[in-house]
């Protein structure tokens, strides 16, 4: 006797932004639609160096599924990804490499620093460890923890989604952003 079919009726949907709709059309602000599209399809680039990388792998697994937030495709190439997830201790020798990976990503790009070592050097307050990746690249979300629980990493991704949703499409051309990039020496 085969198992009866089970239909998943509890699918969570994203709400439509407010706008004016009519027969066969729906109009809203550009920003809202683009924000919605971007936030729900963030493709992450895992840059996992140490233990936080393992926690990240657990987050990607089926128990704490990150794919349900749109991050199903982990492209391991910076050319095709939106979010750079830096998980793990970054040594000073790795700094220029991380910068190179960040530069290869196409706009719009965001960075999440997962764990204590990526945010601030963590417990490794010593000469070879970079004390926080924000010394080489601009970071959007910091997830504290050593290592953070998968729920914590998911919380970080959700905060990033909030950021992405409300980001204006002209942000990348604004003088504030340009100044930020200048301070890192990135064109």
């Amino acid at each position, binding site marked *: 006797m085969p198992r009866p079919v089970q239909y998943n009726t509890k699918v969570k949907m994203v709400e439509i932004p407010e706008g004016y709709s009519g027969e066969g059309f729906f109009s809203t602000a550009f920003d809202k639609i683009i924000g919605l599209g971007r936030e729900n399809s963030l493709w992450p680039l895992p840059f996992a160096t140490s233990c936080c990388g393992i926690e990240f792998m657990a987050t990607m697994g089926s128990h704490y599924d990150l794919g349900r937030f749109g991050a199903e495709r982990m492209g391991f190439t910076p050319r095709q990804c939106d979010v750079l997830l830096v998980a793990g201790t970054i040594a*000073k*020798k790795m700094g220029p490499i991380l910068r190179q990976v960040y530069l290869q990503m196409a706009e719009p790009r965001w960075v999440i620093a997962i764990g204590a070592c990526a945010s601030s*050097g963590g417990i490794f*307050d*010593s*000469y*070879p460890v970079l*004390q926080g990746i924000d010394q080489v690249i601009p970071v959007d979300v910091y997830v504290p923890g050593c290592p953070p629980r998968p729920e914590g990493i998911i919380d970080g991704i959700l905060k990033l989604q909030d950021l992405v949703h409300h980001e204006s499409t002209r942000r990348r051309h604004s003088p504030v952003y340009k100044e930020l990039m200048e301070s890192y020496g990135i064109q």
Partner: protein
Amino acid sequence: MGLTNEIIQLALTEKFGEQLTEWEAQYGLLTFTAPADMNLKVMQFLYDDEQMRFRFLTDLTAVHYPERKGEEISVVYHLHNLVDNIRLRFKVYVPVEKPDVFTVTQRFSAANWMERETYDFFGVNFIGHPNLIRILNVDEMDYFPMRKEYEMEDPTRRDKDNEMFGR
């Protein structure tokens, strides 16, 4: 009778005499000291001799002893006789102003990167090394971090203060 620490000590003193000093056996591991310019000769003898057969270099590192004036940096070689399963440690002391030691890369290729690491962290200059540059630290680093005068903490960090973080 198999090779033992006493036999090794006897054979070495027979060949090199009084130049090898500070014999001790910590936890069963025979340790001795040789003058800095003789390190290659001693290792060559230990390699070639059919009874000694110390043909495996396990480890090559350095220790900084600031109290021993005139011979502060000690380069430590760990050798292993794979056939009889005997290990040996021998140390070479050099002054910190001119830390020159002959390289053993021709005899043991493993020494190549190990000597680079020793140079990177202690500043020991290995004469004759094919490529003596920094290996684990950033290339622009201008000091030798594992020497005792340098602290472990990152020198560029400004926001952590010493009392709260117990440095």
